[in-house]
C-alpha cells in the first residue's frame, strides 16, 4: 500500500471519528495528500525503510508548538494562542518528510489521567456502540488517534506516564525515551524536570522510526543531552538471545486487576519461553514515588503556569483585573484555568511555601533520588549520568517488566464523580521511571480469553493490557528491542 493510500485513509478516519474528540485541529487535506504522493514518487523503485516517517501522517499533541495550527494545551487561557515558532521536534519531523496533519486532544497542560480535563471537551474511547471509556491521559488524543488509525504515529508528552497510560488503555505502543534525548524547545512546560516528549504508534517500528528522526541534541534546550554524553550512551548491543528480565515485586499490588495480572504473567512466560530469564527484584522506594511525584510535578507546574496572565498572549478576562481589592490576574487566571489545573497550582504553591517546603518539596526530592538509586541498584547497565564506567555488571537485570496501569481502561461514567486522588493512583506504575528519567515503553498484551468483555468479543475486538518495559538511562534501544519481542511473543 502506498503512503498516499495510508494518508488518505487516515485523514478520512479523522473526519469519521471526529465525535471521539481525539483530534482538535486538522490540516488542509489536499496539501497533505499531495505531499504523501510526492513522497511515494520520490521513493518509487527504491526499498523504502518502513520505519521512516517520510510521507507518513503524524499528529502532534496540542502542547507542542506549531506555527501551522493553534497551540492551546487544551486550556481556555490559550484558546486563541498560535505559536510564532515551531517546536524542535516538529521541525525535525518536517525535515524528515513527515506530514504534520493536526493537533491532538489532551488534559489541560498535561494534567490528568483520563483526558477529561480539556477545553476542547473529553476524548472518549468508543470501540462499540454505546461504549465510553477513558482513552487515558494526558496524551489521550494522541493515543486514541493512533488506535483509530487516524495517523501513522503521534507525538505526546510524558511527565508521569502521560504517554504510557493512554497507550495501555487504547492498546497502542507508547514510548517515553530517556529524559534529555528529545528536545523540549517548544514543548509547553508542565514539570520541566520530568517532561519528556513521547511517541505513540501501532507498532514498535513506527515508534522507533519517529524516535530516530527526532533524537538529536538541541542547543536551544538547556536540558538537551549534549553530544559528549550521547556518545557514551547505547554502546552495548542487546544479546536478545538471553536477557535477564527483572520483575519488581512492589508492582504486584493488591488492587491490580486480574486481567492485567494475567497479562503480566503471560508476558513473563512468553519471554521465558524465548530463552530469557526472569528475576524478582525489589524497588523499595517505589511505594513513596507516587507521593513524591504529586509534590514535585505540581510544584514545578505552579511555577511554570505563573506566566499565563493574559498580558502578552493568551486570553484575558473581560474588564479590569487586579483591582486593589483582589490579587493581580485573579480574574484572568480564575477563568482561564480548569479545575484540575487550579488544584495542582494550589498544591504546588503550598508545597513550595516557606512553611511547607522542607516537609514536602525537599523530602520529595530525596525520595526522587532514592527511586533513581533503586533502579541503579537492580539494573546491570551503569547509569551514565552517575557513574563513569560503562562496564555492564554481572549482577542485576537488563530491563524491568511490569504493568503500565493497574486496570484496563475505565468507563467514563465511573470517573465522573471520582475523587482526584483515585485518578492519581493510575500513575503508580509509570511515575517511578519518570522520576528517574529512564526510558520506558508500554506495549499492548492481549488479555486472556476469560477476561474479555462479551460485547467487545462479539465485535471481534481484542482487548489488551499495557505492559511496561523499563531500562537504564540511555538504554532506549534495548527497551525498544525488548518491547518489539514482547509484542511478537504475546500476539494471540
Amino acid at each position: 500500500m502506498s503512503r498516499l493510500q495510508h494518508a488518505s485513509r487516515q485523514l478520512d478516519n479523522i473526519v469519521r471519528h471526529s465525535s471521539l474528540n481525539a483530534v482538535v485541529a486538522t490540516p488542509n487535506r489536499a496539501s497533505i495528500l499531495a505531499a504523501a504522493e510526492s513522497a511515494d514518487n520520490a521513493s518509487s523503485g527504491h526499498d523504502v525503510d518502513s520505519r521512516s516517517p517520510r510521507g507518513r501522517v503524524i499528529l502532534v499533541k496540542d502542547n507542542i508548538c506549531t506555527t501551522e495550527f493553534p497551540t492551546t494545551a487544551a486550556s481556555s487561557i490559550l484558546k486563541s494562542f498560535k505559536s510564532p515558532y515551531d517546536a524542535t521536534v516538529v521541525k525535525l519531523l518536517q525535515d524528515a518528510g513527515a506530514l504534520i496533519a493536526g493537533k491532538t486532544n489532551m488534559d489541560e497542560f498535561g494534567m490528568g489521567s483520563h483526558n477529561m480535563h480539556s477545553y476542547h471537551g473529553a476524548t472518549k474511547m468508543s470501540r462499540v456502540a454505546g461504549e465510553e471509556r477513558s482513552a487515558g491521559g494526558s496524551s489521550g488524543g494522541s493515543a486514541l488517534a493512533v488506535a483509530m488509525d487516524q495517523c501513522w504515529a503521534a507525538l505526546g508528552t510524558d511527565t508521569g506516564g502521560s504517554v504510557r497510560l493512554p497507550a495501555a488503555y487504547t492498546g497502542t505502543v507508547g514510548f517515553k525515551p530517556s529524559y534529555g534525548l528529545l528536545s523540549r524547545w517548544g514543548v509547553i512546560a508542565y514539570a520541566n524536570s520530568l517532561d519528556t516528549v513521547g511517541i505513540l504508534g501501532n507498532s514498535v517500528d513506527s515508534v522507533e522510526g519517529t524516535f530516530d528522526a527526532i533524537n538529536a541534541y538541541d542547543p536551544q534546550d538547556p536540558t538537551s543531552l549534549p553530544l559528549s554524553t550521547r556518545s557514551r550512551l547505547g554502546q552495548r548491543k542487546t544479546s536478545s538471545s538471553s536477557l535477564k528480565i527483572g520483575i519488581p515485586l512492589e508492582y504486584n499490588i493488591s488492587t491490580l486487576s486480574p486481567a492485567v495480572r494475567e497479562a503480566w504473567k503471560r508476558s513473563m512466560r512468553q519471554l521465558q519461553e524465548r530463552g530469557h530469564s526472569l528475576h524478582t527484584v525489589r524497588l523499595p522506594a517505589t511505594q513513596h514515588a507516587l507521593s513524591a511525584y504529586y509534590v514535585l510535578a505540581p510544584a514545578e507546574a505552579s511555577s511554570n503556569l505563573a506566566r499565563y496572565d493574559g498580558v502578552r498572549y493568551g486570553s484575558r478576562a473581560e474588564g479590569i483585573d487586579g483591582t486593589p481589592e483582589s490579587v493581580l490576574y485573579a480574574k484572568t487566571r480564575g477563568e482561564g484555568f480548569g479545575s484540575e489545573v487550579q488544584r495542582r497550582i494550589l498544591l504546588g504553591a503550598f508545597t513550595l511555601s516557606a512553611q511547607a517546603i522542607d516537609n514536602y518539596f525537599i523530602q520529595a526530592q530525596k525520595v526522587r533520588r532514592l527511586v533513581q538509586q533503586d533502579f541503579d541498584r537492580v539494573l546491570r547497565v551503569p547509569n551514565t549520568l552517575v557513574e563513569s564506567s560503562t562496564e555492564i555488571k554481572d549482577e542485576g537485570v537488563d530491563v524491568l517488566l511490569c504493568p503500565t496501569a493497574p486496570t484496563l481502561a475505565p468507563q467514563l461514567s465511573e470517573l465522573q464523580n471520582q475523587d482526584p486522588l483515585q485518578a492519581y493512583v493510575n500513575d503508580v506504575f509509570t511515575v517511578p521511571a519518570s522520576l528517574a528519567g529512564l526510558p520506558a515503553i508500554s506495549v499492548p498484551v492481549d488479555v486472556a480469553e476469560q477476561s474479555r468483555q462479551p460485547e467487545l468479543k462479539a465485535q471481534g475486538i481484542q482487548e489488551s493490557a499495557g505492559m511496561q518495559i523499563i531500562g537504564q538511562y540511555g538504554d532506549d534501544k534495548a527497551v525498544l528491542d525488548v518491547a518489539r519481542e514482547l509484542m511478537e511473543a504475546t500476539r494471540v
Partner: protein
Amino acid sequence: MIPLASRTSSAIPSIRPLVCRSCSSCTRWQVSKSWASPVRSNASRPLHTTAQSISDNAPFRKVLKEAAKKIKKEKREAPEVSRKHGQMKNSRVDDWELTVGIEIHAELNTAQKLFSGAATSTNQPPNTHVALFDVAFPGSQPIFQKPTLIPALRAALALNCDIQYKSSFDRKHYFYQDQPTGYQITQFYEPFAKAGYITLYPHDFPSGSPPLSGPITIGIKQVQMEQDTAKTVQQPPSTHLLDFNRVSHPLIEIITLPQIHDPTTAAVCVRKIQAVLKTVNAVTAGMEMGGLRADVNVSVRSRNGLPTNDQQSYSGITGLGQRTEIKNLSSLKAVEDAIIAERDRQIELLESGGVVEGETRGWTLGSKSTKRLRGKEGEIDYRYMPDPDIPPIYIDPDLVDHIRQTLPELSDESIHKLVDSQYNLTAKDASTLLTLSDGDRLDYYYEVVEQLRTIFVNEPAIHARIGKTAGNWVLMELGGLLKNEEWSSTIVTPQDLASIISHVLRNQITGRTAKMLLAMKFEGDQRPIEQIVSDENMLLRPLSRHEYEELARTLLEEKADMVRDIVEKKQVKKLKWFVGQMMARSAEGTVEPDKAEEVLRMMLKLSD
C-alpha cells in the same frame, strides 16, 4: 528583587512587534570604557520618582552641602513642622545603636541578556530587543549566557569575595506585569560569590564627617546574579505600557552584612561600592542613571539595656532589634535620609512603649518619614525553587585567577600608591584626584608626573618633590581656573603644565609668574611655554643683596608707624605687607618673597 512601584517612566513608546527574531543573533557590544564619563542626556532610562538634581558623580561634599541647604530652606519655610519632625536630638539618638544592612542591585555591563541571545539596550525603541524566552512564550527555555559572568566576576573579586566553584539559579515567584514568567530567576540557595568585604577609609567620607579615625570594614554576605524586569510606561489615568527591552538584563545583587551603624557610613558604603563597580567596568551606569538601586534594612537596639525585643538575628549577627526594610532607594541622599528617618521613627516608637513591626517600607525623596508598604502578614512568600531548566554553573578557578590578575587598579590601591613616598600626596588630595572627572584627572596627574620625572631624571633632590608639587598644580592652580568649565586634558596639556612646573622647581620663575603663565595657557595662548617666558621676559633676574636692602630701607622709612607696630607690638604679620610692596615695586620676576622677608627681618632685627 527590583522593587516595583517606582520602576516606571512616562515616555510614550511606539508599538512594535513583541519579539525581535534578530535578537537571537545580536552580538553588538556596547562601547564602554572604564573611565568614560556618564552620558548626560535624556535618552537614558528615567525613573519617575527620582528627579535628582545632584549627580552621584558629584563630590560627596557637594551632595551634602546641597542637602544641608535644602534642610535650611525647609526650616525657613516651615519652622513648626521641622521642629516636630526634624532630626532627633543627638542625646536621644546616642541612647540607641543603629544597625543597617544594604542590598544593592546593579545592572551589569554585558552585550547579551542573562538567559537569551537578545542584546541588552538602554535607550532603544521599546520592545525591539526581546527574545521568546524574555517574554515567557510557552515552550521557550532559558539559555544562560556565559559571557555575562565576566563582569559579575570582576565585581565580586573587586569586593574581595570568594568565588564559588558551583552556583545555581532559583526562581523567585511573584506576580507583576513587569515580570513575564511570574518569577525572577536569581541565586537564592547557591550564589556565585560569598564572604567579601569593603573597606571605608577616612578619605572616603565627606570632609568633617568621618566617624572614626581608622578604616571601617563592612562584610559582604554574598553577590548573586539575577534578571532585571520590564519597564512599565505609564499613560495616565489607567494605561500601563510595557517595554520588555530591559527584561532579563543581567543584574548583580550585593548584600552587605548588618555591620553599619551610621547613616552617613551607609551612604558612603553605597557610593564606594558604586565606584568600585565602575572602576572594574562591571556595571552600565550609576544611581543617577537608574543603573544601581539600594534597599536598606534598619533596626535599632538600646544601649542602656532598655527592654526591647533584641532577639533578632540576621546573617548570623544576633541580638539585633526588629528590622524593617526600605526598598528602592535610588540616590545616596535617599539612602542616608531614609535611614535617619527610619531610625528616628523606630526610636520614637520604642521609647513610647511601642513595638517595631517587621515590614517593608518606602521612601520618597524629600519626605520626612518612611511609609509602610506592607506588613509581615502581607509579605510575599517567594516560594524559591531551583530552576529545573538551568544547569548549575561551574566556574573554572583558572578563569577566576585570570580575571583577578587583569582587574583594573581599584581606588584604594591608587590612593595607597599616591599617599606613599612615590607621590607624597595627602589622602585627601589623592581621593579628590580619583573622584574628579571620573578618574580623568588622575590620569592627567600621572602624565604630568611622568613628564617631570623625565625632565629631572638626573636630579634626585628635585625628584622627591615632583609628586607633591604636581598635585598642587593639578588640583589647586589648574583646578582653581576650571570653575564652570568641563574638564579636558587638552585645555592645558600635561606637557605644558610639566614645563611650567619645571621652571618653578628650578627657581627660574617665581610662583606668581608661573600662575600667570598657566592662566595664559588656560586662556588659549598658543605659544610654547619657553617662548612665552622669553617673549614676556619672565625669567627670574634676582636683585642683588644690596638692591634688596635699598628697596627695603625706602619702604621702612615711608611707613615708620607700621615698623613700630612690628617691632614694639610684635605684629609680625604686618611684615607680609612689606614683602608684597617690595614685589609690587619691582619688575616682574625679580623679587622672591622668601628672600625679601629674610632681608626685612634682618634689618628689623627680628628672629626667624
